[in-house]
């Protein structure tokens, strides 16, 4: 019974993540897109932990740990390097 809940919640989080994709597509600023990708990191960590419990495979917690550590590196690369210098208004990027 609780097993079914783990899978149901993992599926629910996956659907949440798919809904968040809309923000990546829509923008409007580059920060919004990066933010949505960052959200996916947290969601994937939660899904991995649920799947670890559901499948009785504790190794997946290590995968979640690595995710938790590394998701920030991409975002830091974005802030430090990839954000263009020129001013951007809210609506000029599609």
């Amino acid at each position: 019974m609780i097993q079914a809940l783990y899978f149901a919640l993992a599926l629910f989080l996956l659907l949440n993540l798919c809904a968040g994709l809309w923000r990546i597509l829509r923008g409007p600023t580059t920060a919004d897109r990066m933010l949505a990708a960052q959200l996916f990191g947290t969601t994937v960590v939660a899904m991995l932990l649920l799947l670890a419990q559901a499948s009785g495979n504790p190794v997946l917690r290590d995968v979640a740990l690595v995710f938790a550590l590394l998701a920030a590196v991409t975002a830091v690369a974005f802030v430090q390097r990839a954000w263009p210098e020129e001013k951007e208004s809210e609506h000029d990027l599609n």
Partner: protein
Amino acid sequence: MTLTDYATACLLILGGIFFLAGTVGLLRFPDVYTRLHALTKADNVGLGFIMAGLVLQAESWLAAGKLLLIWLLVLFASASVSYLIARRALNKGIRIWM
């Protein structure tokens, strides 16, 4: 189902609700700063509830500790990253919604 299982189920569902709130905030809020706030707060609390639910089922203290460590790492990383993003967005003059 035992009593622990019921407690886990409640915590997990609560966590799911917070994740849903975070996603709705990401989709519906009007500017970068409010969206940033929705995500980092709601999702990290959601992850915390899911973590608490799973800690009740953990097979050992070590496993429970690892779960807690993962949550703390995510909290720390998303707090720092959201600060960095918000600061740069302000410096670049992205308008604040009023």
